[in-house]
């Protein structure tokens, strides 16, 4: 107790300054999460309020882990994130290197590049739902007008085409984050090591691999950290594009949670799934945050 009092007295100013931030997160994030942690051990259904006190221990978790639907959604989500983050990183790197080469109109390019970042995910979803529609979509119309396809391609109905369409929407929206941050890294890069390496006879690839890329790594990890903070934004895109359907073919973990909680009204089981999704997000963020810290130290050694 005395130690706590001394701690508060010694750090009164920073504690006071931080308290509003801590308070609001405590009330709106932490407390609800503690509540939902309890709920995940109960048989809570929205239509029967009493069932909140129906404690079932690990039954929800056991049911969820034994559920084929859950595993296929989780597997699809991990596949989706792996493709999305890697492709965004590669495309962002390519885009940044490209824009860095342009001398005329570079500012305009940078502004246009930020365009998709401003879009609400729900708008991105709507935009591609509209473009990929099988009867009126511009993509199908163009293919048919050009004679490249005889009949409409069911972009949002076929299992893999729908997955690819959603992936395309996600990549369209988020590549800019990587491109912009990597471009900032390219601007900040000192010229001397590159020129020294060229004098020593390194070719372009060697310069890129051993000088440019290591310098860019912290910037890539910041982008990864920022991205992993909101990977769950994909929920909005899927919800508007396919709603997880048809017949659960594009179901991601997040759409499955929403369906279980609000359509089936099984709050207990949905909360058990939600905890899996929270752990997934925390893992991604923590992983890249650690990488960022390590890369920073490495950069400091230059």
């Amino acid at each position, binding site marked *: 107790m005395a130690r706590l009092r001394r701690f508060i007295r010694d750090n009164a*100013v920073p504690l006071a300054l*931080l308290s*509003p931030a801590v308070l*609001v997160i405590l009330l709106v994030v932490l407390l609800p999460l503690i509540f939902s942690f309890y709920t995940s051990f109960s048989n809570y259904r929205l239509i029967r309020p009493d069932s909140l006190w129906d404690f079932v221990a690990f039954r929800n978790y056991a049911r969820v882990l034994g559920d084929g639907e859950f595993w296929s959604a989780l597997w699809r989500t991990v596949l989706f994130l792996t493709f999305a983050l890697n492709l965004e990183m590669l495309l962002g790197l390519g885009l940044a290197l490209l824009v860095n080469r*342009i001398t005329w109109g570079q500012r305009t390019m940078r502004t246009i590049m930020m365009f998709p970042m401003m879009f609400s995910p729900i708008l991105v979803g709507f935009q591609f739902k509209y473009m990929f529609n099988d009867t*009126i979509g511009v993509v199908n119309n163009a293919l048919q007008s050009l004679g490249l396809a005889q009949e409409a391609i069911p972009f949002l109905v076929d299992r893999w085409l729908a997955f690819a369409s959603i992936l395309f929407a996600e990549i*369209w929206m988020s590549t800019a984050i990587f491109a912009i941050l990597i471009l900032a890294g390219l601007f900040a890069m000192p010229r001397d090591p590159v020129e020294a390496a060229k004098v020593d006879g390194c070719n372009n690839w060697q310069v890129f691999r051993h000088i440019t890329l290591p310098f860019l790594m912290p910037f890539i990890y910041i982008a990864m950290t920022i991205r992993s903070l909101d990977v769950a934004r994909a929920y909005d895109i899927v919800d508007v594009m396919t709603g997880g359907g048809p017949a659960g073919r594009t179901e991601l973990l997040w759409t499955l949670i*929403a369906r279980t909680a609000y359509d089936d009204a099984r709050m207990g089981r949905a909360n058990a799934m939600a905890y899996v999704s929270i752990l997934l*997000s925390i893992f991604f963020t923590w992983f890249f945050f650690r990488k960022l810290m390590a890369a920073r130290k490495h950069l400091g050694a230059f």
Partner: protein
Amino acid sequence: MSRKQKDILTWLATFIVMLIICLPGLWVVLSAFRPNGEILTKPAVWIPRDLSLDNFRAIFGMGEDVVGIPVASYFRNSVVISVTSTVIAVLIGMSGGYAFARYRFPGKGAAFLWLMLSRCVPGIALSLPLFILWSWTGLIDTQIGVIVVYTAINVPFTVWLTEGFFRQVPRDLSEAAQIDGCTPWQAFWKVEFPLAKSGIASAAIFAFLTSWNEYALASQITRSTDSKTLPVGLMDFTAQFTIDWAGMSAMAVIIINPALILTFLVQKHLIAGLTFGGVKG
């Protein structure tokens, strides 16, 4: 390859990238000015023949065809909720960011990491307990209920951004002002705040965009015209038997406009904020 060939290749690649980035948005904007009849025609009409503002009149309840979706109320809710939650989140974030930038205290690194981790809880996962708790407390389907939630999800990021900018303001300036007779409070507002202003502006833009674009949480804790925001309202169109593509496009244009304008105004600070906040540890 000669230098000239390389230049041509660079330009070609740039052109293709621009096309992929710009065309989807432009197609939606174009559709917002076309009647549904023309959008649905088979074979497709490529050169628009009939451009008008009818779709915008319809979604705002003016003109002949009235869409049964109260876009005007959704717009009002979106503005009130986004502006209020941004102002509160920036004030709280400035206070927290200043503490991280200027003071040393035990557990600082851990506190920062926890703040960031609180941001990565998926919206849909957080919506489950909030839906129940907000129903019990009567906060569900009220503007205040949404404002509180948006403030909380914006605080971690505003703390992060403002911290980076406060750290770039030299400590000596505030000390010098205090020697000249300012109170710490005056020194902050007269010396440190003006110097960090551009960074705080970028934090505000980020917070505003997050609130303005958010869907997963709002779709569960809003129900009626009392609190529904534009992104949630956009989904009203899909609930109808036939999708009104032209109306949806018009609403999409309304949602994207404020975001675009704000971004053009502050894009330079936006990039600087993201980079310095993260790299210079």
